[in-house]
């Protein structure tokens, strides 16, 4: 069930891009994240693993303040991006999210055409000077998300009329098109076949050369393949955080070991 | 603002609009704007103050009340010219194919009053058909459509028909005898109030709308008898037959001569302060009461207005801009 990591173990780690310390998250009275401290390094892929419902998505959403949109959600603690507190009152969450992009767990394409879905971010951020540049951005993003071949003949068709896996890749393309500095991906390959998964993993590896990527995944193999750092969550706690090879080969916490060997879920 | 602005009684409205239209055709002034909305609302806006954003003329189907004059004065509206334009005849009519009636006030009192005298006792009105009221009448269900309490016509109907009938049947004395009150006047007032209370069992229906509504109700209930303005009746003789009152047939002549008792005077009031300021205001007032308009052969009479026999006095008081109160 667990293949040895293939890449990423030898990459040099840069200084930290995001630092979270003492983060607690509450949904109403539910204490979903408990005292999490973590450093997301620049130009690194960090994997969040852990059993379903342990708080991975919740913590991920804290990193670009998407939790702001949930009324009942309350975040405590400090999260800094490039040394700046992102929960500071002067911070413009919009700018933050432009830097820290996100692919959601449930694919949520806009009820617009495929083209418009991908072009949206580029449009609002003014990444293209003209139509042909925009076309190029869209094509590149769709190619990177391994979707171009399937949709190139129907860019005008609605994004909501795609298959599950296609929607997921569309959302990846949409996020990639805006070129964020940090990309948060919540189970980006859950609906993808192995080939598409491999392509997305390639994309992630490619992104890592310039940006940081945080990826939530249930596939231990995937975590091992793409990430250099792994964080293991359990019941809202960050149980263990460290270099991916270490976590997978020599975990210090026994819960981690139980999880990666398939004993707790 | 270039045009004369008029508001008030919906009874006066047709006459005022006939005059306004002719005025606009024959003068260089624009056609005055005549709003409806009722005497009360018209007078209220009239009394809102002096100035361009207030109306110049208020039409009313009754005389302005003392209290209103006082309110007016509080707002700076002091000099008011009262112009009586004629009389509005009030008639009783029912479906053209129905039975003909010739009423007396007593009949109406017995038909509609809340309480009537039976064997010297005041009891809840037991009459169901007109035959119960008067043996000469056919046994037709009593169903009357009378103006609602917001209408000035209702007041006239109460005063000149029901109250008369109340007195004639002796009910008034009976009520007066047992009326409460400290002074004779208070007792009389209480008795009058009791007299004019109409039955509420559905045989007397208040009409809050207009005569067209009354007509529609008679259309849908052939037993119904309604109260109309003379002008309205005269335009609908194909659907309505009019009843006589104490033997007199209502017409502009019989009302002008005072033979037919049920009528009320119609007025309009002019804000003197606006004369000379609002172009055409005085001309309009004079035009309205000119013989060729408001006289017995003029278009207003043709439409159903009962011309005022003393129209000349009115003409001269308009010409002199005689103010309310000063010439009384």
């Amino acid at each position, binding site marked *: 069930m667990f293949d040895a990591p293939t890449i990423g173990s030898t990459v040099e780690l840069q200084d930290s891009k995001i630092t979270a310390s003492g983060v607690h998250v509450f949904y109403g009275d539910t204490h979903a994240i408990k005292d999490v401290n973590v450093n997301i390094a620049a130009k690194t892929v960090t994997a969040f693993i852990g059993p379903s419902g342990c708080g991975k998505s919740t913590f991920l959403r804290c990193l670009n303040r998407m939790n702001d949109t949930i009324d009942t959600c309350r975040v405590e603690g400090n999260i800094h991006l490039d040394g700046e507190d992102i929960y500071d009152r002067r911070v413009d969450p919009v*700018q933050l999210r432009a830097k820290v992009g996100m692919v959601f767990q449930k694919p949520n394409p806009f009820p617009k055409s495929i083209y418009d879905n991908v072009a949206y971010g580029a449009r609002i951020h003014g990444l293209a000077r003209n139509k042909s540049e925009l076309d190029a951005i869209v094509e590149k993003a769709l190619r990177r998300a391994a979707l171009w071949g399937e949709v190139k003949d129907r860019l005008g068709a609605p994004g909501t009329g795609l298959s599950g896996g296609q929607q997921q890749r569309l959302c990846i393309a949409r996020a990639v098109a*805006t070129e964020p500095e940090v990309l948060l991906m919540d189970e980006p390959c859950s609906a993808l076949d192995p080939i598409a998964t491999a392509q997305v993993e390639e994309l992630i590896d490619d992104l890592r050369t310039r940006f940081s990527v945080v990826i939530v995944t249930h596939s231990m193999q995937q975590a091992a393949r793409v990430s250099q750092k792994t964080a293991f969550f359990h019941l809202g706690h960050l149980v263990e955080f460290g270099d991916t090879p270490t976590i997978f080969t020599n975990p210090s916490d026994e819960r981690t070991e139980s999880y990666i060997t398939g004993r707790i879920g | 603002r270039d045009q004369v602005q008029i508001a008030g009684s919906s009874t006066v409205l047709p006459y005022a*609009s006939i005059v306004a239209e002719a005025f606009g055709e024959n003068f260089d002034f624009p056609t005055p704007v005549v709003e409806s909305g009722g005497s009360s609302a018209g007078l209220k806006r009239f009394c809102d103050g002096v100035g361009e954003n207030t109306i110049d003329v208020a039409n009313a189907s009754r005389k302005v009340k003392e209290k209103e004059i006082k309110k007016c004065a509080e707002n700076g509206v002091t000099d008011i010219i009262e112009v009586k334009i004629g009389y509005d005849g009030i008639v009783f009519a029912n479906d053209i194919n129905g039975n003909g009636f010739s009423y007396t006030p007593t009949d109406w009192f017995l038909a509609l009053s809340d309480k009537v005298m039976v064997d010297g006792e005041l009891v809840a009105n037991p009459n169901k058909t007109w035959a119960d009221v008067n043996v000469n009448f056919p046994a037709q269900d009593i169903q009357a459509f009378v103006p609602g309490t917001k209408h000035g016509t209702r007041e006239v109907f109460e005063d000149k028909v029901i109250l008369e009938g109340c007195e004639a049947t002796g009910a008034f004395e009976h009520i007066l005898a047992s009326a409460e009150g400290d002074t004779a006047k208070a007792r009389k007032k209480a008795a009058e109030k009791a007299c004019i209370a109409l039955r509420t069992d559905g045989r007397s229906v208040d009409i809050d709308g207009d005569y067209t509504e009354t007509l529609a109700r008679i259309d849908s209930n052939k037993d119904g008898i309604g109260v109309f303005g003379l002008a309205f009746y005269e335009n609908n003789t194909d659907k309505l037959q009019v009843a006589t009152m104490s033997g007199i047939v209502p017409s502009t002549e019989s009302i002008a001569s005072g033979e037919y008792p049920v009528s009320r005077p119609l007025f309009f009031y002019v804000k003197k302060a606006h004369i000379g300021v609002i172009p055409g205001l005085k001309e309009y007032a004079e035009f309205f009461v000119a013989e060729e308009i408001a006289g017995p052969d003029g278009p207003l009479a043709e439409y159903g207005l009962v011309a005022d026999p003393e129209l000349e006095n009115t003409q001269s008081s308009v010409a002199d801009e005689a103010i309310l109160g000063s010439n009384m």
Partner: protein
Amino acid sequence: MSDAKLLTPKTSIHTQSPRTKRRNAAETRFKVFGMIAISIGLLMLVALMGTILSKGIGAFQQSFITMEVELLEAKLDKKGNRNLSDIKKVTTFGYTPLIKNAFAKAVKDQGIETDLKTKDMAKMLSKSAAAQLRNVVIDNPQKIGQTIKFRFLANSRIDGYLKGRVSRESIANDKNVSVAQLDFADQLLKAGVLKKTFNIDFIIGADASDQRPEAAGIGVAMMGSLFMMLVVLGLSLPIGVAASIYLEEFAPKNWITDVIEVNISNLAAVPSIVFGILGLAVFINYMHLPQSAPLVGGLVLTLMTLPTIIISTRASLKSVPPSIRDAALGVGASKMQSVFHHVLPLAAPGILTGTIIGLGQALGETAPLLLIGMIGFIASNMPTTIGEGLLSPNSAMPAQIYEWAKRADPAFYERAWGGIIILLVFLVSMNTLAVILRRRFERRW
């Protein structure tokens, strides 16, 4: 999941269990209820439309009498110097003899035999005839002395006779028309002098007084309504949508927004006449805007329509799934952008529905207009500029209809229904635009 269940023989998907039968019956009932509901609504619409059409279609035709009138100089310009102010001194009353003469001559020319006096003939014409004549003379003084062909309206009784509303029996007690006049009308009809034709003036003309139902038109009031609707649409839609967006998307959820929310819903329940009271107090007495002006009417109706639009807009904003907002925010759109780019288009159908209903209500509303002076006899001219359209006194279609319905002459009754037809045509064209727009925004996801 018990063993018994395991052993039950496979049931065909064609044979329904009693429970399924019951559920399917419920399903059918539910669907039938839906059909019944639609049918009730449509049936009522058909009934109403049928009534309106059958009663009002006659208003679009009118009877005219054509004759040649000699514009006698001796009567119209005694001095003969064509001085306009002198010509103007001759009132409409002075024109009546010309018409009588013309009528007599027309009868003679056509070889019609009648005992009717010319005075009674002239009475068969509309009272507007003299004014029509006078206007022509004042506009073209040089025509004095010439003989010109005129098409006069017949009065409402004669018109009613042609339309079958008036008959020889029904006028037994009518002092405005006689049997002899009806006989004469028959002769005129045969001679082609009297004719019933389409009457454009009903659609574009102004109101006329109670004595001239035949001359009354709804056109000017239609302009009044048009300008009011422009004001209402121009103000209530943007303001309503803006207010809803703020309350639904931006406002912090606290008691203040609760108060505002309840407040707005409550405004919807305020009787329309109260908005008239407010309009009189604020716009006329305080802000000194002119009375009887469509601008004021539009402002009052705007206040009245706002709650409708706000309530429907908020409901539709609420119904947009949050995941759409998340998606936009996730790629770095601002809240404002996510709302304007994604949420608003998805909420557009509901917004447009609110607009349709709110504007429909505003178009048919009379009560508040009563207090700001737009109901009554307001026979102004067709506005020529936008400013005039907004500021000069005018009525509105429902007010005009309401006014006509109250008038004594039954001819107005027909016009009231005819006016309703025009109002509905106006309403349907207004709605059609919105409906087309709404169809473009409708989608399911």
